[in-house]
């Protein structure tokens, strides 16, 4: 058994000798071989020590152990020195350093596991080790049983799966007329060998129904059936197949198969079942991709690394980034809301992500190698941790996939524009004799963990574009302000967001509940990410300016709502300076920081340092000030030249209502009440409002004394006294309704509004600026108007400020450059897409290799394993990764045509869905514990054809359904049944029970209730009284899911649909390529007694009464059979139906008009087996 720790150096044999002498026991200490111990030392060992080993340790740590634990043998001195997975057990002469002693003291390991040894015994063991661990000369015990060794190369060479895909020669068959394609020859040749005749072709109605359900999951309509039966052309079937493959419902049917693989769900499960926000975008992505027949290698690439593609696939009409949505699959797993042990939780999540990835794409169980080399397959523990490195280097985010591509172009253009004008301004300043100081060397200090003054391009990472292409450099010019542009010159290097991106809005839809403190931060497209580093000290300080949040991500771990003590989130506000986080709990972890500016605010970050006290922080700051002094001088002089007087602006607060009265204002109507509002009077449900000071104005007058019931309906105005416009701009905070001219703030001149502003249907106020220079000298008033009664019938205002640029002399040359710069930036600003929906996706981080965790234990990291793909496929050399995670390189390995797994696995999945059983029946496990392929050559034939045919899933599906094999009848011949009872050779097409989703969708279709609308946020799940527990959604969805197909019904982990579960829809926890087909009475009880089934049956009957209005019972029965079973009834079936329909009526109305009777009949057909089985 290999040891992953290098042996610790033996400290000092001399010291041991001294101890031994002091004890009066003389012996020499040999390293790695038995010491020639003295008689008394041996006696001590035999009497006191060995019995302890025998009693407490040998059950698990000897050659006779039933199961050797941790690869550790304690029954010989050599074994103890060699040690186990965690390294040597003993360091002779040094008890404190010996793992054996640490373990029995319960410091590190806790051994023996059943309970701590008495102190006396621990003392004995310590003493023995201090003596040098004397042990008599004896042969190392050997076991009768040979222990397995892990030999990856041998396993690889001996197992079929790892061998290359070889295009087989088509076999010879006896009946050359039967096969339609090579596929059929492979099947028929094996049947020939066994002497079996294939079943007859299925009749056309059976085939049509089979095709409809297999390809789109909905029954054929009577019209479609009649058209097909009437079409005698040879190509009739092919035309049906093409029509179905082109149907938008194809993606819904096969998308559901795919969602089973990626454990798709829209909540996190566990204690509170929090949302997985925007998961449905992944579902929609999968449906669209399947409908568009995206080549499978591209589909795989998008899943693994869609965020990293330089040319992402765009939605054909909406032009948003499709590729990045594929990466959402990584993050669809369960999440714990507040794990105590983050590292362990992280390891568990990675385990699930790798498990799903490897089963889905590769059909192997890589996760089995988390704790030990795979017991059966050619997959090592090193392979597992080499793959987890890709995840350690990647992060979760909610990506602005709609605005991403357009804004990327804007960002690039913006960088060019800014650089151009910076150069021009610098040249201009030089022409005025002001030269920019040379760059300063970044500080060198061990405490600094990262410094934006010294950041390499690869380490500068962000989600979005607002932090520009890199940190701002000392001495560089920056344009600020809108109507009153001002040039600022940087005093130091820092990463800071550009306010041109103000107003980004990220849309999350369909949320049920989410306690996440993190999701509420405006992160999407607005996050600066530091490089990853090791936290060595509990105190971590960042030198920042502005307002926003700092989030510490420990081990790249994403918390939902925790930790409950909140130490990893820190709010930043106000002046420049140090912000310190207490991360004591996470010392020793690898972490990175995320910086998120507050909404519409500025945040700049210079550097972070760990372990410094106040004096240390002051020292760093002093050093920074010293080296940047020249830049301070340069910046002041430059700003004076460029802004005239340095860009000073005079401000006058016109009104902020802090007197708590409307003094100086005139009120009409009831909406504004008698005095302004405070947060206490407006009602806590309105949120923070964002006012300045305590008082603000809002016409949602429901405060005590106001009318709480009438809310939005109140109207009124609030008008200021008259003033003379002598400023450049009027700026104020405004919120409330967005009704133009109805809920608004107006600038009124001569009783006419000349400028008007509204809210955004949101009472959180934001800044609005009027440029009033063209009205200079006019008399004016400000009037706040509420003239709207419906939703958002209110308006709010606060903190009205008049601003005026101080007069000064600005050089005409400078003014021209600044003006042109401003114009170009404004042009770009208009191109920014500010509103975007977001979806879960990957984000690349620092390239990090993971450590092997000994026995999978997150508390016991071993050696670093560089990132690479499975050794058995491409060797264990570190992958050549230029920057970041390397997922793109990983995707290339998975897609490599020489990789024998990927193409075999996907064609086998298709075969499984169409033929009821895979060629490898264990579709997610092609390994030793899985089943062997029944037709290995056929599998390779399909894989070869798939690769050669552009990896088109639709073409492969068509190839299979056009085969004669697929079209066989479900009736097996007696002789065939005798020879091959399990149908392993496929002599007939086995009848297949429909999935829960298909049963429900069929009922909807037949009842006329089906809403064919595609995509969008999930339909809420209908909650029964038996669906209870924490996180139960507040509102139940309608029983019939509003008629939407089942794939659009909410998948909440802790509240899964009982209907679906009973019919074997998998619980979303791991890749599940093969559903169970169980047979339990609950299925019968649902079809018999579930109110939804009864209701939809009745609607089906209502449709029958409408569609076949004639009072002809047999004709109506025929219609039922055609819609429900895709065929006409036999005479006997028809007669049985007529008997039932006539006997039940008794003396009542005639059967033809009794809708209850027909509802009963419809219900009977739903319960007939043909309804839920494919012929």
């Amino acid at each position, binding site marked *: 058994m290999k040891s992953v720790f290098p042996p610790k150096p033996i400290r000092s044999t001399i010291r041991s000798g001294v101890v031994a002498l002091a004890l009066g026991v003389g012996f020499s200490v040999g390293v790695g071989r038995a010491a020639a111990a003295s008689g008394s030392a041996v006696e001590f060992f035999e009497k006191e020590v060995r019995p302890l080993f025998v009693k407490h340790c040998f059950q698990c740590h000897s050659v006779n152990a039933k199961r050797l634990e941790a690869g550790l043998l304690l029954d010989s001195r050599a074994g103890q020195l060699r040690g186990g997975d965690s390294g040597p057990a003993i360091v002779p002469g040094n008890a404190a350093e010996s793992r054996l002693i640490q373990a029995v003291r319960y410091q590190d390991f806790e051994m023996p596991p059943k309970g701590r040894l008495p102190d006396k015994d621990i003392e004995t063991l310590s003493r023995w080790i201090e003596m040098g661990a004397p042990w008599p000369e004896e042969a190392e015990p050997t076991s009768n049983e040979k222990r397995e060794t892990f030999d990856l190369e041998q396993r690889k060479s001996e197992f079929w799966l790892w061998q290359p895909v070889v295009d087989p020669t088509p076999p010879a068959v006896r009946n050359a007329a039967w096969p339609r394609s090579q596929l059929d020859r492979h099947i028929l040749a094996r049947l020939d060998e066994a002497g079996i005749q294939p079943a007859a072709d299925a009749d056309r109605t059976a085939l049509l129904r089979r095709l409809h359900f297999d390809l789109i999951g909905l029954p054929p309509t009577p019209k479609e059936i009649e058209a097909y039966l009437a079409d005698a052309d040879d190509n009739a079937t092919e035309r049906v197949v093409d029509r179905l493959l082109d149907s938008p419902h194809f993606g819904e049917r096969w998308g559901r198969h795919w969602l089973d693989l990626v454990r798709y769900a829209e909540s996190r499960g566990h204690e509170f079942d929090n949302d997985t926000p925007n998961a449905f975008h992944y579902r929609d992505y999968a449906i669209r991709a399947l409908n568009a027949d995206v080549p499978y290698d591209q589909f795989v690439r998008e899943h693994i690394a869609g965020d990293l593609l330089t040319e992402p696939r765009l939605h054909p009409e909406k032009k948003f980034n499709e590729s990045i949505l594929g990466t959402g699959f990584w993050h669809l797993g369960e999440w714990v809301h507040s794990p105590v042990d983050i590292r362990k939780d992280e390891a568990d999540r990675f385990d699930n992500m790798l498990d799903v990835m490897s089963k889905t794409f590769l059909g192997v169980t890589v996760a089995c190698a988390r704790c030990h080399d795979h017991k059966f397959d050619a997959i090592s523990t090193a392979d597992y941790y080499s793959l987890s490195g890709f995840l350690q280097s990647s992060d979760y985010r909610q990506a602005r996939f709609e605005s991403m591509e357009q804004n990327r172009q804007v960002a690039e253009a913006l960088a060019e524009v800014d650089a151009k004008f910076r150069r021009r301004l610098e040249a201009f300043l030089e022409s005025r004799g002001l030269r920019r100081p040379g760059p300063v060397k970044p500080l060198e200090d061990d405490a600094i963990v990262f410094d934006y003054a010294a950041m390499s391009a690869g380490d500068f990472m962000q989600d979005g574009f607002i932090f520009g292409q890199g940190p701002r450099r000392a001495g560089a010019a920056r344009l600020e302000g809108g109507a009153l542009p001002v040039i600022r010159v940087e005093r130091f290097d820092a990463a800071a967001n550009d306010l041109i991106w103000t107003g980004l809005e990220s849309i999350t839809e369909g949320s049920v509940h989410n306690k996440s403190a993190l999701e509420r931060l405006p992160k999407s497209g607005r996050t600066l990410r530091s490089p990853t580093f090791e936290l060595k000290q509990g105190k971590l300080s960042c030198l920042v300016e502005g307002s926003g949040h700092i989030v510490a991500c420990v081990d790249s771990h994403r918390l939902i709502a925790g930790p409950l003590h909140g130490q990893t989130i820190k709010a930043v506000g106000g002046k420049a300076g140090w912000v310190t986080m207490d991360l004591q709990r996470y010392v020793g972890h690898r972490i990175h920081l995320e910086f998120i500016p507050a909404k519409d605010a500025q945040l700049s970050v210079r550097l972070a340092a760990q372990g410094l006290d106040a004096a240390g922080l002051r020292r760093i700051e002093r050093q920074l000030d010293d080296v940047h002094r020249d830049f301070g001088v340069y910046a002041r002089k430059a700003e004076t030249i460029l802004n005239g007087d340095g860009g000073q602006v005079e401000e006058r607060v016109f009104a902020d209502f802090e007197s708590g009265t409307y003094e100086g204002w005139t009120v009409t109507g009831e909406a504004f009440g008698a005095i302004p509002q405070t947060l206490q009077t407006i009602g806590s449900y309105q949120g923070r409002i964002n006012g300045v000071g305590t008082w603000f104005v809002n016409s949602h007058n429901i405060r005590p004394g106001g009318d709480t019931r009438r809310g939005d309906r109140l109207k009124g105005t609030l008008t200021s006294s008259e003033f003379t416009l002598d400023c450049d701009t009027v700026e104020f905070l405004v919120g409330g309704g967005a009704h133009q001219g109805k809920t608004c703030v107006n600038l009124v001149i001569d009783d006419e509004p000349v400028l008007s502003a509204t809210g955004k249907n949101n009472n959180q106020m934001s800044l609005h600026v009027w440029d009033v220079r063209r009205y200079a000298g006019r008399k004016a008033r400000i009037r706040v108007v509420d003239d709207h009664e419906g939703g958002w019938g209110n308006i709010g205002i606060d903190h009205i400020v008049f601003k005026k640029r101080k007069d000064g002399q600005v050089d005409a040359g400078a003014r021209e450059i600044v003006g042109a710069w401003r114009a170009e930036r404004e042009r770009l600003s208009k191109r920014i897409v500010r509103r975007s929906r977001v979806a879960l996706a990957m984000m690349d981080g620092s390239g990090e290799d993971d450590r092997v965790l000994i026995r999978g234990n997150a508390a016991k990291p071993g050696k670093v394993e560089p990132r690479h793909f499975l050794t058995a496929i491409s060797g264990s050399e570190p992958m050549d990764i230029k920057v970041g995670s390397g997922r793109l390189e990983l995707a290339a390995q998975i897609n490599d045509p020489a990789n024998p797994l990927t193409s075999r696995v996907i064609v086998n999945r298709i075969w499984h869905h169409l033929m009821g059983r895979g060629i490898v029946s264990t579709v997610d496990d092609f390994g030793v514990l899985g089943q062997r392929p029944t037709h290995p050559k056929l599998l390779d034939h399909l894989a070869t054809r798939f690769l050669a045919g552009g990896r088109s899933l639709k073409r492969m599906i068509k190839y299979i359904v056009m085969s004669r094999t697929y079209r066989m009848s479900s009736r097996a011949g007696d002789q065939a049944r005798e020879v091959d009872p399990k149908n392993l050779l496929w002599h007939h097409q086995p009848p297949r029970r429909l999935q829960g989703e298909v049963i429900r969708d069929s009922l909807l279709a037949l009842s006329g209730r089906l809403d064919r609308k595609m995509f969008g946020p999930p339909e809420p799940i209908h909650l029964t009284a038996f669906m209870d527990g924490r996180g139960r959604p507040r509102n139940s969805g309608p029983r019939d899911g509003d008629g939407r197909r089942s794939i659009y019904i909410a998948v909440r982990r802790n509240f899964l649909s009982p209907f679906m579960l009973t019919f074997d829809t*998998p619980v979303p926890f791991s890749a599940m390529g093969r559903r169970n087909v169980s047979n339990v009475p609950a299925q019968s009880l649902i079809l018999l007694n579930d109110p939804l089934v009864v209701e939809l049956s009745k609607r089906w009957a209502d449709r029958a009464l409408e569609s076949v209005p004639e009072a002809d019972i047999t004709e109506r029965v025929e219609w039922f059979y055609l819609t429900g079973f895709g065929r006409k009834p036999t005479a006997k079936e028809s007669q049985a139906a007529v008997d039932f329909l006539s006997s039940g009526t008794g003396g009542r109305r005639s059967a033809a008009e009794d809708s209850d009777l027909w509802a009963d009949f419809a219900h009977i057909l739903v319960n007939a087996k043909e309804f839920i089985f494919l012929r």
Partner: protein
Amino acid sequence: MTNLNSYPCRRQQSLPTTRREMLAKCGVGFGAVALAGLQADRAFGGDDIAAPGSAGHGPHFRPRAKNVIFLYMDGGPSQVDTFDPKPMLDKHNGEDPGRFFKVEATQFNNNGKVLASPWKFQPYGAAGIPVSDLFPHVARCVDELAVVRSMTSGFPEHTFANYFLHTGSALQGRPSMGAWVNYGLGSECRNLPGFVVLNGGLIPPGGLDCFGSGFLPASHQGSVFKPSGTGVANITPTESSPARQREKLDLISRLDSMAMARFGRHDSLESAIKNYELAYAMQMAVPGVMDVKGEPQHLRRAYGLESKYEPTRIYAAQCLIARRMIERGVRFIELTCPKVGGDRWDQHGNLKAGHENNARAVDQPIAALLQDLRQRGMLDETLVVWAGEFGRTPFAQGTNGRDHNQYGFTVWLAGGGVKPGTIYGATDEWGYKAVQDRAEMHDLHATMLHLLGVEHTRSTFRFSGRDMRLTDVHGHVMRDIVA
């Protein structure tokens, strides 16, 4: 080639040959849904009891217990306030625990002072086992109990710990122990589910997946019953009369037999057809077992059905229905706690009031259940297990609560081959960590299976490239509590 049989978790399975095997093995059922676990067919049921030594199925040796009633104490009752008295807490009440031992990280990390128990302990019964004043009724049955004071869990969060307690794994989606027991032994009952959850009102954190069948066939999953009304979903016919339903079923059956001619003969179809007659029978059986009105007055009173406290009445009904289900052969019954207004046994604050309410709800009904089973001679064949997902800290959270503690806590077992009147294992002098005969969750599972005659290492199911079992690769039977 690797020698497959040298690994302990390895068992070869050939492709299924019979319909029964096909159903049992290809069947991979999921989640907990009302009534999915009804035993349709002997395919999933009693005749699966195979000869000792066959893979997956027991019993492997003589069973001591036939059924299990699992009294799940949701939220984690405090060991030092119930069955594990610690005088040191009184002695050092209000002192800083860090002076005496290393305080591990807790979920809220709002750790306070050493907190003495607000309840007094007294020895009870011939065995003199101490019980606190929280459980005056159970205290009188203490000679039936084996009290395990050294239980540990790997997880200090509710959901992880719940999955661990219920399924032997902290991950979502694994089979619950009730499912494993039914998988291993089959059901003795044809018209009731083999694994029933009587939901008193509190579904544990982690949700219905605590009762799922995971990768085992759906027939093994827990059926969630309410202890009132029809009990379970879709059990009431929608037809105007039973006769009408019978007529409909007859036509369904006729049409099915005609359709069989088109399909050819197939096991899957035949089974689906047979299902309907069973479903029909269950519509009768379920209301019967739920109806406790016929129980004698003295028993109703003893259980607490007439208690003034509503949660006691609810739990009393759960306990009484549990006994009725045992009588009808339901293999595994779990009782969840009723709502008591505050929180489950999860007193991060207000320990006194919270624990008192929770204890008041369950104490009398549990004692009545033990006595009733004893008097009917059923206790020897019924294993009763009382356990929460973890215990609580001996020091305070804030000032008057206790945080989660997975390092040492108490569970007890009774009946079904358990050695009565025993105390097993011990925590340290603070009641913080188990130090003697430390027991893991896997050991509890191994012991329960052992009492049922199942060798836990031999009850396996192939999934995801491994032979899975309830005890994963762990577990030792606690032989000292086996009679």
